[in-house]
Structures are given as structure tokens and as C-alpha cells.
């Protein structure tokens, strides 16, 4: 049985279990912290860095999704500095890929777009990279447009942790990182993909999509995930 700890978030006294993350406890108390890679039901990897928070006595900023709460901790989730970094992160995501909202199937239903709105981003200050990336339309039902991928790795995790196939992975490092199926073979030729479509449903942008959808038509339903994760944990006895 894990202990209950008390801490302060934004000056507010809160309590949580010691095995919970700052993000969990903040959300339980109605405190919003922006996230993109985090999704209930998947492991947390701290990939997007949007949930960075300030902790009194710690000089570095720490990602709330992978930092556990501790007794007496004082956390700050809102400051000029955090807002500046969050905007910078989202601007980098936009400038790094080719995000063309008006012609995207996920226009209006996109977590990256929603995050930009929430952070009041009305233009991207950094120079656009305009990378050249090929669409993979080899799968019979689904498509991958890496131009819209933000490397959150939700698809990698859901495929590995929930479906158990581990079809998706990340190839390369740094700015050259890219999503691949199997050993960088076309998705349609993948021997491990079960075509379950979980990756498509939890993708925060229009990078993974169902074929045949037009602009703004791709709505995702990631709601199945916490249920599947719970049932899996129950089966494994944890």
C-alpha cells in the first residue's frame, strides 16, 4: 500500500499517493498542465516536454508526467518562463514538420492545433524546415503522413504495450528521427501489424489516419485505452 503525501501545487495544498506523478495529482485537483505525448493507459516517457514544471529547490525544470510527488514538494505549473518554453516547444513542432492545417484530415480535431490555440500561438517565429518526407499509403486501410508526425511515440507504445505487436518504432536520432513499421519496411508489408487501428485512434495529429477521410473528417476516439490498460493490468495481476 503506497503512502499518502502532501505537497503544494501553485500554492494550493494537495495530497496524493507517493507512486503518483505530479501530473496525476494536478489533474485530480483540477489543475491543467498541457501534454501531447501523455495518454492515460500508456506508459509515460516525457517525450514532448510540454508538461515541464518548476519545483522549489530544483534548478532544472522537470516533466510532470514522469516526476513522482514527494512529501513537502512545492510545484509551480504556471509562470512566464514555463509559458515561454511551452510556446517554444509547440513552435518547434510546427516548424520541424509540414503541418498544413487547412488541408489536413484532422483539422479541427488535432491535439497539436488545440495546444497551439490554448497557448495563444498565432504564428511560428522560428524558420520552417520544410522537410521532405514520404507518405506511406501501402496499408490497405490506414495511412501514415510523417509530415504531420510529432514523434510523441503514442503509436509505438500502444502497439507494444496494449496490442503486443510492437510494429511501430522510431528510427534514427535527433532531427533525423522518424516513425517506422517493422524494420523500416512499408506498413502494408508489415508481418507484425494486426491492422487493429489502435495507433490511428490515439495519434494526436493527422499523421496516422483512416483512408478515405477528407479534410477535417478524421476524428479519433482514444477512449478505449484506459479500459484496455486496466483489463490488461488485472490479467497480469498488478
Amino acid at each position, binding site marked *: 500500500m503506497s503512502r499518502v503525501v502532501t505537497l503544494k501545487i501553485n500554492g494550493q495544498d494537495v495530497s496524493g499517493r507517493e507512486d503518483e506523478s505530479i501530473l496525476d495529482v494536478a489533474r485530480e485537483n483540477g489543475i491543467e498542465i498541457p501534454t501531447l505525448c501523455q495518454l492515460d493507459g500508456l506508459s509515460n516517457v516525457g517525450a514532448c516536454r510540454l508538461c515541464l514544471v518548476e519545483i522549489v529547490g530544483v534548478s532544472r525544470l522537470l516533466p510532470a508526467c514522469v516526476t513522482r510527488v514527494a512529501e513537502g514538494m512545492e510545484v509551480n505549473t504556471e509562470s512566464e518562463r514555463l509559458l515561454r518554453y511551452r510556446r517554444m516547444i509547440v513552435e518547434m513542432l510546427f516548424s520541424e514538420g509540414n503541418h498544413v492545417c487547412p488541408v489536413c484530415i484532422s483539422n479541427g480535431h488535432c491535439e497539436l492545433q488545440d495546444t497551439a490555440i490554448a497557448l495563444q500561438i498565432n*504564428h511560428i517565429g522560428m524558420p520552417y524546415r520544410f522537410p521532405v518526407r514520404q507518405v506511406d499509403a501501402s496499408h490497405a486501410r490506414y495511412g501514415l503522413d510523417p509530415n504531420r508526425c510529432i514523434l510523441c511515440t503514442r503509436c509505438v507504445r500502444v502497439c507494444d504495450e496494449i496490442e503486443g505487436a510492437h510494429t511501430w518504432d522510431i528510427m534514427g536520432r535527433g532531427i533525423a528521427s522518424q516513425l517506422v513499421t517493422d524494420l523500416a519496411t512499408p506498413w502494408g508489408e508489415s508481418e507484425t501489424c494486426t491492422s487493429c487501428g489502435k495507433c490511428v485512434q490515439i495519434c494526436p495529429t493527422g499523421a496516422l489516419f483512416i483512408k478515405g477521410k477528407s479534410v477535417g473528417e478524421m476524428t479519433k476516439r482514444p477512449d478505449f485505452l484506459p479500459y484496455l490498460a486496466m483489463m490488461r493490468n488485472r490479467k497480469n495481476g498488478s
Partner: protein
Amino acid sequence: MTKKKIATIWMDGCSGCHMSFLDIDHRLLDIADLIELVHSPLVDHKDFPPDVDVTLVEGAVSSNEDLEKILKVRARTKILVSMGDCAVNANVPAMRNRFTPKALNEAIYLAPNMAQPQIPHGTVPTLLPQVRPVHAVVKVDVYVPGCPPSNDTLFYVLSELIHGRMPDLSDKTRFGA
């Protein structure tokens, strides 16, 4: 009260933002006494005039003609507005950035279905190596994302600017709106 000098220009875009601007409709009459439209694709003025109060810019910077135009417009405008996603983030026009201008010209003008395949020289503007948003080239004062921004949004922007206020667009429009 002296009338505010308003201008609009059209670079690499589909003219949808100008259509949305026209959709302001009868409300344009409400502000007609406050503004003077000194330059626009909608009116017949050849050269861009000096001392313009507000210029609404549609489109990305795509050709040498766009580049010359925006430099001149910036120098002659007090408040420059990036109107719509093409001006704000280069949008659909920038989807050609993965190709070189040479490859594009050859693919289009030397296509087998052309009656007289030839690359034009001097008759159409020369493409820049990359399409860029307006603020990558000159200073922009107001950003109005949207594809196109709604007529309500554009009317709000115009109304605020002609009354000397900076519009707050945080809850009114977004990329791809």
C-alpha cells in the same frame, strides 16, 4: 476625423481571404466613412501609395514579384497585417518547397499535354527557392490565422485597427479555421 488609408495585397494565395473580406458585406458600408481603400486587387490602382495606415496581406512570399511587392508595402505601411494562413505560415503554397523551382517549371511548362512546351522567361514571375511566410521576410504587426479567417474575424480586425486599437484574436481564429 481623417479617413484611415487601408490597402490589401494579394501574393501567393487563392484569393479566398479577399472573398472572406468581401463577405463582410453591408458592414463595409458602416465603416465606409472611416476608411479610404487606397490600393487593392479590388480597386484599380497601379502603384502602391505611400503613408498607408493598414495593409492586409493575403498570401505567402513565393516569387521575386512577391518579394519586391512586400518590401515596398512594408516600407509604406504603418500596420502590416498577415491575413490568413498563407501569409501567416506559408500554408498550401509552401507544399511546393520540397521541389526545386527548376523541377516545378519543367513539370508544368514542359508537360506532354502542353501545346507548345517551353519554359517562360520574363513573362511570369520567377519562383523563389522556397515559399516563406510574410514575417520571414518583413516585420508583421498583426497575425490573423485562418483559411480563410471568417468575415466576422476580418471585420473585427479592421474595426479595431481603424479605431486605433490592436485586435485580440486569441479566441476568434486559429490555424486552419
